[in-house]
């Protein structure tokens, strides 16, 4: 069992991603990384896919990482950490190492949903003892806000710009958390830095579970979302409260919604503060707001049904 979180204990812990990294002010990703590393009670070795987090935290002779860290390429953080973890098992079996170490891969949505998808799927199927954490900001932000399969419906990006004929991204996003859960891994979860205690509890829990784990964490990007620099936590909270980004976990096939909004807010509350959805508020694009809301409703209702259904499947404990 994971030790319960204590603010007192956390406040005394060393922050393992130092200040002085070059992420944009207001970026959600380093907040997510700090929370993940703070939650761990074990030494962590991390792999990092090419992306904002990677290019901004280890430049020339500077590194912001106080833990062992490896960046290989864009699409292979999962395969890379699987190699590190396997060497750990090999040396441990040979009696050359004894310490308990945990392994985490960090990737953005481009490096996870798209180009790194095969590498991730393979690593999960092979059963490595690792957590893959996607910080999902919904586009290729590092290269300048291009569309990914995690980009929400309707969003204006630099490769699906809202024009006079095509009003932004016309496809719904890929539900990666469910796809990873469908690998039959022991733990898959969604989290948000706005619910820090939920996020950190999930990390702690995942670290106690043997085998491959996946966490998808929303990480607002004010450059790409065209939002205010200090709204990162506010927007990630609105994502949760509108049920655009439900907080749940799937543990051994059992779904549990970990944070249920008291009142499900309309999706426009999440969309309105973001410039990338501005065109959807034009009268001729009203259908887009409706379609986006309908998708959220469908997914949320389905999630609640899954929660009820999988609870009924839970085998009674001996």
């Amino acid at each position, binding site marked *: 069992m994971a030790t319960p979180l204590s603010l007192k204990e956390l406040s005394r812990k060393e922050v393992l991603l130092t200040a002085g990294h070059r992420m944009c002010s207001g970026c959600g990703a380093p907040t997510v990384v700090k929370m993940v590393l703070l939650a761990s009670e074990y030494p962590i070795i991390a792999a990092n896919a090419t992306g904002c987090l990677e290019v901004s935290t280890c430049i020339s002779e500077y590194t912001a990482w106080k833990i062992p860290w490896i960046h290989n390429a864009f699409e292979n953080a999962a395969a890379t950490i699987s190699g590190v973890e396997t060497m750990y098992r090999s040396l441990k079996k040979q009696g050359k190492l004894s310490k308990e170490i945990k392994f985490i891969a960090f990737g953005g949505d481009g490096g996870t949903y798209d180009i790194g998808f095969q590498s991730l799927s*393979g690593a999960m199927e092979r059963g490595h003892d690792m957590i893959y954490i996607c910080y999902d900001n919904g586009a290729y932000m590092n290269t300048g806000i291009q569309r990914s399969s995690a980009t929400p419906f309707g969003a204006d990006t630099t490769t699906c710009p809202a024009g006079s004929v095509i009003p932004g991204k016309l496809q719904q996003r890929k539900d990666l958390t469910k796809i990873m859960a469908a690998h039959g891994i022991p733990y898959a979860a969604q989290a948000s830095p706005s619910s820090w205690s939920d996020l950190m509890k999930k990390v702690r829990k995942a670290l106690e579970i043997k085998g491959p784990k996946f966490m998808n964490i929303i990480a607002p990007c004010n450059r790409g979302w065209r939002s205010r620099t200090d709204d990162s936590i506010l927007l990630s909270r609105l994502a949760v409260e509108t049920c655009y980004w439900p907080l749940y976990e799937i543990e051994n096939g059992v779904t549990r919604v970990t944070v249920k909004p008291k009142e499900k807010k309309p999706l426009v509350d999440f969309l309105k503060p973001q410039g990338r959805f501005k065109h959807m508020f034009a009268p001729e694009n009203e259908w887009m707001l409706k379609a986006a809301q309908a998708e959220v409703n469908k997914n949320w209702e389905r999630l609640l049904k899954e929660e009820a259904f999988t609870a009924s499947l839970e085998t009674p404990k001996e």
Partner: protein
Amino acid sequence: MGQEIVAVTGNEAVANALRQVNPDVSAAYPITPATDIMQRFTSFVSNGLVKTEMILVESEHSAMSACIGASAAGGRVMTATSSQGLALMWEILFIASGSRLPIVMALVNRALSAPLNIHGDHSDGMGARDCGWIQLWSENAQEAYDNTIQAFRIAEHLDIRLPAMTCMDGFIISHSIERMEYLDDEAVKNFAGEFKTTNPLLDIEHPVSYGPLILPDYYMEFRRAHADVMSKVTKVVLDTAKDFEKISGRKYGLFETYRLEDAEIAFVILNSAAGTSKDVIDEFRNKGIKAGLLKPRLYRPFPYEEVGEALKHLKAVCVLDRADAFGASYGPLFTDIAASLYPYKERPILINKIYGLGGRDYLPEHAELVLNELAETAKTGKVKTFKEYIGVRE
């Protein structure tokens, strides 16, 4: 020097070299004709003959990616591949060498698609010749076995720390049974020695960062450092060969020369076709024609000076390439040989033949035709054609 004489395929020989070296981790993906190496090796794993942990990945891209993670973690790592597999790894090959990780890879040379072809040629290895890896090429099963064992010592040498690939011809060597000699397990274990870690990720007391972003302010210094390390490889290859001779009785250098010292005409040729060529050279020698051969072993880094010295006295040389470099230019081996001879005022006439693509047989009559042409060229100083395909339908 306990040696066992066996009749085995090239793949079996390499698999046994890997068993004897006993790496900590291996990641691999099946591809013809290299598959057989990993099938044999995984049976060693399943039967407890090695301590290796296998990572049976979902692609060669992930195989090389996982090898990088495992190697940076701090241990001995190997893999094997061919053709499309190596092509899929291409991006990651540079990251392995740029990160100075001593991964060893058995490359079973095979043609590249399209058209799809599973047979032996050198297009794959040549496509990866400038990716910062060490390349050792092998004529037969014995050389593939010996090179595999030596590759670990060279790659892991503390002055080097670069990945190395050993090359042998797909099917022609990988699947043909030959007589060869195995060293005993203990001798190979001692020769390979314990793996020495340098900045391992698993040393959590001393955290290191691998794979930084290096912008124009320092990138060039990193590349220059890589080039400098490359220049130290030849010495380590020769030192390793000397030590290897002590346990095996077999001599290795940067390249092999065959009846070259007093020759007037010669072949430069890689891998298995060198064997056929040597037989034909003997026949020509019997007829009084002074023919010889140079077979590169260390192809990357290429020992330009040593090769130039060995070839400069000749009248005419034909470089035979089992791969073409498209662009109406010469084959890749030819351009290296030409570069090695360029500094000499007096140098042989050079011609280039492309042969054996996609596993097309290289026959004694092909060697005869080339030698006759070289003899004529040496006599008249006239070149029929600088580059042509041989053994091909016109």
